[in-house]
């Protein structure tokens, strides 16, 4: 009787695209690829760089954030607690990176499935190379944070996933390296304006250089990111390619590198793209550093670190700067007057802050996030040389002196790995590289424990051990299926 009406039972969503009718032309694929990059944007009230702030910078000796009541995730991370496997941040980091990998895998699967729907074969290959670059990028972060992780190089169903355990770090690196090599061979060195921000072959070389440098670090943790592979020369070759491309140069003025009106400047090898204007493509990471109390006075919207858990820069970091270092002023904010009239003795990063560029809310910062700066490329080159790759001391000294010169500091000579790392610390303070630097060079245990002894008046920080090099697997992932993953040693 109602057979005609029964046809009405087949409804498709009105306001959402179903994946069945998608991936049918170059435009669809372009949107799908943009969707992979969008993993860097704000999700779950945090963007991708802000994960670095908590997971890397707050872990390092640059940030002292024991917390007054210890309830914020970054307090527990800063304090090296062993019970952090249940933290929302740990869970979020795992989910966001793997979600990005799924997005990349979906594109790669669909490129095979819908072979030929993109008429321009170059474009099709570029999409594949971008997807592989991004997959490698996420896997590299995963290896650095969690060590062994499951390898998914195609879309996987929940049932299939229940039988895919964690692969060795070496196996994950194999995927990362093959993806990045594909990207190096198939991506352009640069793009025209409208595509600025896409992965380039030079960005891929830079990330691969970091991969080789990290792999070459001393194997302090059985499942850590360092495998003592001694691939400094491979890293150096890639870095030299970037330098030889002549596409980049050191900026004259340190503070101009982070100027909102100077994005994509000559320093930037690759950055994550953010735009403001309340259209959902803004960034959050500048918010990660400042105090809620400071924001109340200086910004038109609420947000920032609540009083019980500010991310203060450490005295140790501040004291490491020489008198007259021009980087101090653009990097730090030292003290402000609170709304109750107190002088708040706060010291936090304002490297990425410009109060006149505030967007509509705290998720709407328009500044791009520098992933790889040319200065970093040069200093990584110096590191390779000091670690035994071809080159000589004067090349190392010249690089460091160029950096110091820009900072208004005097020349040095006979730079060692230790002094190079100290200079990197000052140069890249707030750029979330410090923890990786310490892990890669094997300095992490000594440097951190010394720092904790000197800095930690609260008594809340635990001593660092080799286990601290990587994080625990999120507890909820261990609970999905008993025995699928084992917790990393040293964690509850």
């Amino acid at each position: 009787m109602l057979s005609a009406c029964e046809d009405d039972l087949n409804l498709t969503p009105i306001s959402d695209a179903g994946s069945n009718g998608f991936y049918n032309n170059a435009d669809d694929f372009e949107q799908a690829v943009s969707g992979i990059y969008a993993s860097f944007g704000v999700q779950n009230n945090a963007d991708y760089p802000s994960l670095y702030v908590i997971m890397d910078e707050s872990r390092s000796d640059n940030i002292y954030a024991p917390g007054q009541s210890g309830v914020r995730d970054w307090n527990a991370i800063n304090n090296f607690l062993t019970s952090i496997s249940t933290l929302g941040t740990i869970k979020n980091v795992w989910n966001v990176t793997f979600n990005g990998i799924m997005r990349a895998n979906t594109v790669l699967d669909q490129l095979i499935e819908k072979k030929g729907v993109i008429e321009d074969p170059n474009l099709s290959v570029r999409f594949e190379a971008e997807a592989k670059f991004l997959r490698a990028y996420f896997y590299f972060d995963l290896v650095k944070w969690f060590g062994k992780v499951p390898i998914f190089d195609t879309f996987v169903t929940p049932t299939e996933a229940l039988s895919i355990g964690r692969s060795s770090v070496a196996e994950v690196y194999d995927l990362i390296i093959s993806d990045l090599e594909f990207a190096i061979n198939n991506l352009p060195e640069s793009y025209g304006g409208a595509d600025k921000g896409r992965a380039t072959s030079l960005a891929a070389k830079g990330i691969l250089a970091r991969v080789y440098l990290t792999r070459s670090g001393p194997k302090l943790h059985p499942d850590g990111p360092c495998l003592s592979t001694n691939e400094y020369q491979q890293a150096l070759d890639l870095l030299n390619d970037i330098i030889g491309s002549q596409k980049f140069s050191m900026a004259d003025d340190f503070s101009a590198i982070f100027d909102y009106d100077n994005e994509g400047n000559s320093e930037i090898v690759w950055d994550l793209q953010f735009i403001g204007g309340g259209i959902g493509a803004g960034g959050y990471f500048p918010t990660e550093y400042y105090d809620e109390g400071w924001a109340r006075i200086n910004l038109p919207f609420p947000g920032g670190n609540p009083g019980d858990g500010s991310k203060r820069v450490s005295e140790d970091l501040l004291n490491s700067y020489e008198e007259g270092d021009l980087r101090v002023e653009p990097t730090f904010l030292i003290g402000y007057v609170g709304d109750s009239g107190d002088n708040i003795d706060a010291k936090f990063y304002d490297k990425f802050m410009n109060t006149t560029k505030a967007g509509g809310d705290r998720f709407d910062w328009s500044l791009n996030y520098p992933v790889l700066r040319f200065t970093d490329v040069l200093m990584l080159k110096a590191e390779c040389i000091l670690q035994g790759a071809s080159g000589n001391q004067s090349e190392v000294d010249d690089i460091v002196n160029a950096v110091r010169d820009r900072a208004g500091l005097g020349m040095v000579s006979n730079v060692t790995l230790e002094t190079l790392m100290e200079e990197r610390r000052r140069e890249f303070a707030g750029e979330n590289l410090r923890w990786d630097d310490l892990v890669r060079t094997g300095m992490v245990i000594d440097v951190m424990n010394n720092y904790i002894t000197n800095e930690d008046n609260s008594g809340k920080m635990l001593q660092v051990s080799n286990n601290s090099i990587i994080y625990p697997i999120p507890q909820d992932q261990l609970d999905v299926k008993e025995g699928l993953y084992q917790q990393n040693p040293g964690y509850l």
Partner: protein
Amino acid sequence: MKPIFLLSKRCSKPLIVFGVLIFSLQIGWSQRTVSGTVTDADTKEPLIGVSILAKGTSTGTITDYDGRYSLDVPEDVNVLEYSYTGYGRQEVQVDGQSVINVSLSSGAILDEVVVIGYGTQKKADVTGAISRFEAESLEERPISRVDQALVGQLAGVRVQQTSGTPGAGFRVQIRGTGSINANNQPLYVVDGFPLEVSEQNGSGDFTSGNPLDNINPNDIASIEVLKDAAAAAIYGSRASNGVVLITTKTGKTGKAKISLNASYGWNETAKKLDILNAEEWIDRASEMIDDSWEASGADRSRNQTSAERLAILGSFNRGLIKDERWAMPGHPGLMFIDWQDEMFRKGAVQNYSLSASGGNEYVQYYVSGDYLDSEGIAIGLGYKQYSARANVEVNASNKLKLGINIAPSYSIASDPGVEGKDQQMHITVGMVPVSEDTIGLDVNVGENDIYTWGNSRSSPVRVVENSIGDRKIFRTIGTVYAQYSIIEGLNFRTSFNLDNVDQNTKSYTPAWVTRNRTAEGRYSGYRRQVFVNENTLSLNKTFGGVHNLAAIVGTSYNTTKFDNFDIRVSGGFNSEVITTLNAANINAGSTFTRETKNTLVSYFGRLQYNLKDRYLLTASIRRDGSSRFGPETKWGVFPSVSAGWRISEEAFMQDVDFISSLKVRGSWGISGNNGIGDYSHVSILDFDNYSFGGSLAPGQVPSNFANPNLSWEESETIDIGLDFGLFNNRIFASFDYYTKRNTDLLLNIPVPTAIGFSSALTNIGEVLNKGWEVELSTRNLTGKLSWNTSINFSHNSNEVIQLGPENTPILGGAFDIPHNILMVGQPMYSIYVVQQIGILTQADVDGGAPLYGNQAEGDPKYFDANGDGVISPDDRILSGHPNPDYIWGITNSFSFKGFDLSFLLQGQWGGKIYSTYGRAMDRTGQGFTDNTLGFHRDRWRSPENPGAGDRGKASSSFGRIKNTDWLYHNDYWRIRNITLGYNLGSLVKNKLISGARIYATAENYFGKDKYAGGFNPEAVNNSGDDYGAFPLAKSIIFGLNVTF
């Protein structure tokens, strides 16, 4: 009404046939007049409102305030039927009499007719579990919603007032909760029109509207709740949470009855939260500041004055320096403020309704208009509702009835944002109760600063005074139907129903009352259209005098379209006087319009058979197809069967005098739950945008792991019931025992998130609800002073039987670590926290007691449940469940001469509430810049002065862990309603006025709960918990009811 536009063209064709039915009217029966008085057989008191009907016609009337009636009886009729709720029906031969006085005996409850799905049934013949609520006196209660009227009335029906904001929907749970992720709310059916089911979100809001929004309680005649599957399964895939059938008033043949009801009164908050007053706050702040000062350096003593401290420090620090005026007599320059008193007010409540009902043999009508205006219990709150209804039925011929019910309504709920986390009630309670006297209540607004030792909130009083938060709903519910009697006992009925809801919400907060001095605004809303066409063929026949048969078959087509939009502002307004968004900076990223649609196509049938009025059997079946499910699982079949035995009708029972009725019944059935969202089985892409070169790059990404095999949740109910009446039914009781097994629960089972998604919706879980219910009504006194009591009492327990494939517990609850758990063998959402077992002494600390972090003497002492020597999240244990074990309600009503008095007492016990509001108001180590709960006046201060033993020292630095300090019993009792009335009767009686009554009603006036941590023990406003509930209202009103 234009229902057709929702129908696909193909669907409308077979139904148009009724448009061409020929009207055949018969006119001109001759008549005579019969009059008389109807009285109670026991008390001889007149009965008001007795229905008198000329048998076989629709001609009838009702008795007036003196029990009198007068009826023009058609000549061809010789029998009058007298019926009155709660009394036996009586038929009297006219035989030429012009005066017929009748006395009705009460106690023949079983002749009552109850509404069931797609029909009615004599209560005596009911074999399923159905509770009935007579809505007669609703117009005397100051309530704005139908769900509010159900509180405490029916066994097994838990009506939870989760929100105190005006006009907000209630959560209704029938026989517990059986679903984890899908809907848990019942299906509401108004005069046969099934409304779209909606579920509360985690914040306690019905984001797509509540089905009962704007429905005027004063228009309701009765409400039936179908509790077991046997009663409800005729509604198939929407019935697993029970079905609530609402019947609105209709006209009866006879002289027009015009009724005017006017009431006026006041409401105010039912509760103030116990927090520190100004002196107590100063005491605590001073203690903390002195502690910090002493700890801040050597040679610093708490006796040093503020000036001395300032000299030592060189600069001011509020954490180390006190306000000197605190200790001065009369605290010069300071004002002490009870923010709750400033926020709350006594609001006027008024309600005027006018209705007319009546009819003749051709037309019966009920029309009403109603205006309700309730000022809120806090500044800025209020609720206004304008509603009208016309129920008209036309007897076009002996065979054809046509009818239309239409109810337009408009409501405005004003709420500047008082309920929930960081909303104004939360802020009110947390404000420091001290201010500069030059600033007073104007803390941190305009040019004013905060109070130096206070938090950085802006004065909540000024915020609510100056903000706009208006939710407007315009709704029209309409039904047109035709009923055609094919032959005697065989009827065809078709109906077209449309429910159109337009809702919009405007909010605005001016810049000068916000913390960042940036104006905030938002405009959002939706249109929801539900169209339903139902066609039924029903048969009622008695064969051979003993076989009574009733059968019905039908079809139903049901479609819902939901369009919504949201316009948000970021970055303020460009004008200080314009509050509409043309003056605002729009946040394009979170501005949208969306549309969704779902369709349900159904076939159903039911057979009711009884032999000799004592052996009863009912079976029903429904087949539902829903667009919400994939091709393989689109259709579901929901059968039920029930049987009853009226033992009291048997010959061997006839000598047992004290038993007036006795029936046993049993039922089994399966119903479904399709409340999962419209497109869950479809693989969907989400927008997730990026940018290249400074320009937006739209991105699309997979947003779910689509499960094409998603299907219905099923609920299998077994019910065993016993109904009995004693002593001429002066005592009448029903008892039910049931089990409700919900299987194939739509569960977001945890999956390895490495696949890119954190969960996959799968039909896998199972939950078992078990319980029993008692309904008891007694007529204790039936003389001049009459006293009736009705009691309902029910118990429900639920247990999770299965979760995902690995039965992995699912943890939940916002903030810090999870605090509730779904775990096999335990009640749903069991609370899962660390146990506080006292306060740590120095001996404990020295003796190696398990500590959380750097806990010290005076901090709370926790139970090391896993015995590992330290306190950690692993020490969480099961600590109770949120659903109460028992709910109950007692109504007593008395009448004496012209006076009547009734009161409804209602409550629950056995459940717990976990107050995440504690995070704001009662956290360990909480600073002095927020106020805190009254518990803290009896805090630990020193070993000599350890306080009450449940709250630790003020200066604490170990942080916090979810523990039992935020856990409360949600037990409560409340006197929901007391009504005292006096029937002015003959005092006012004249030609114009046929009756009048005055009354006074106290609603929700007395009560007690154990929830010291918040305002409302039933609150849900933040991920299922209470984080800043707004209190409930209590009110007193005085009213007058006049009939003409």
